[in-house]
């Protein structure tokens, strides 16, 4: 196999990025999705639209704004500099921030659909049995929304693995820090190293297919989500 050490380190970095991003997204996405599924607020439409933006925006647009916002003159960049963190572009942390935005809808939307599908009645029943909110969430919502969580995690992970435009804009192609698989494929194609590009690109196709196949065949009943 003509893959080099640089290729393997890109694969490892990608897996780290996708795992961390998925974890953070499940933590941050769950309350957002819960709020979206329950609220009658007029802000629901606005928040829903903002969450869905990365679905329709070209990644380069998102990447460009992140680059400007996180740069030394940007609002986020000023804040991180004041906190003594420096600026985020060209760092692994910066990629995580970018990926969280980029994959947000892929996690929030399946969760929101799963929460909405639960309906009011199980929650009301729990309330009559004097279950507290945390107890209700753990013993009612989590088990009922489990397929939604699985879908959200798988899609969030797979979508982050496939991320390219955002990383390209804010990454700086630094080995072991910001050079992920999709960027490495682009490097190989640009350098006319088609054999290595094929190995990595083929691996990416196979990985994505297997992940999605597992997801779709694991659904026994029609399920909330995508």
């Amino acid at each position, binding site marked *: 196999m003509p893959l080099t050490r640089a290729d393997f380190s890109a694969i490892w970095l990608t897996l780290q990025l996708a795992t961390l991003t998925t974890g953070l997204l499940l933590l941050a996405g769950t309350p957002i999705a819960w709020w979206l599924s329950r609220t009658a607020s007029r802000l629901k439409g606005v928040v829903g639209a903002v969450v869905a933006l990365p679905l329709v925006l070209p990644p380069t647009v998102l990447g*460009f704004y992140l*680059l*400007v916002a*996180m*740069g*030394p*003159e940007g609002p986020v960049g000023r804040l991180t500099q004041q906190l003594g963190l*420096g*600026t985020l*572009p*060209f760092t692994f942390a910066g990629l995580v921030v970018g990926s969280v935005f980029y994959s947000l809808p892929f996690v929030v939307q399946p969760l929101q659909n799963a929460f909405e599908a639960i309906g009011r009645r199980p929650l009301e029943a729990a309330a009559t049995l004097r279950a507290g909110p945390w107890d209700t969430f753990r013993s009612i919502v989590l088990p009922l929304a489990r397929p939604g969580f699985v879908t959200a995690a798988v899609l969030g992970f797979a979508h982050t693995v496939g991320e390219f435009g955002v990383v*390209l*804009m804010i990454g*700086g*192609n*630094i080995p072991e820090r910001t050079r992920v698989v999709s*960027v490495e494929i*682009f*490097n190989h*194609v*640009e*350098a*006319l190293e088609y054999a290595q590009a094929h190995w990595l690109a083929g691996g990416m196709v196979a990985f994505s297919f297997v992940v999605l196949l597992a997801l779709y065949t694991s659904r026994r009943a029609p399920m909330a989500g995508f």
Partner: protein
Amino acid sequence: MDIRYARVAFVLSLVACATSAAADEVHVAIASNFTAPAKAIAAEFEKDTGHKVVASFGATGQFYAQIKNGAPFDVFLAADEAAPAKLEAERRIVPGSRFTYATGALALWSAREGYVDGQGAVLRTHGFRHLAVANPRTAPYGSAAMQVLDRLGLKQELAPRIVEGQNISQTQQFVATGNAELGFVARSQIYRDGKVIGGSVWIVPGELHAPIRQDAVVLHRGRDNPAARAFADYLKGPKATALIQSFGYQLQ
């Protein structure tokens, strides 16, 4: 003649006109660093010859892959010598049509005034966190920049501070947004009418790196297209060469 036949004939004659007009159209694939001068040259070319230029801008490696796979381009203005030479070896160009249309100059540039001095001594200070360089494996300006650092004996020392743009445009963007304090860009990106557009700059002496030759070829698809040859010839003419120089490129 039946009115219906008349209509068909009319439509057919329109189609015929359209195809004969298409013969005077030249589809050109242009390396993105040459975007601005190419637009200026294309406008003059259209005025002078009546031919029409359909320009696509992008990365040289991508264009090479697309041309190999049948992309509809008549002329290719690459950012390097390698891709046109490869196409020539693969017999995908009109024999003898390869020539150097521009030679790039390298500049160390910062968006801040007074940051880069006229000798590049700033590279030896430790005041900056990020030095932007185009990917040396794929971008000719990137490999030239690495040769310069090598010559100055700074390659090892500065390696941890280098951030790579995928191409020279992205590299310039890193510097323009201040995310990298300074970077090696193409002089053509920061020059208009022979003047720096802003910030501070060191024009890197040409002897510090191998020349950045950008070659053009007439592709196979353009062999019977008079507009393709006309465009290639026009590039060598006085109007085009004057424009190319005004954008900060050299000729040789």
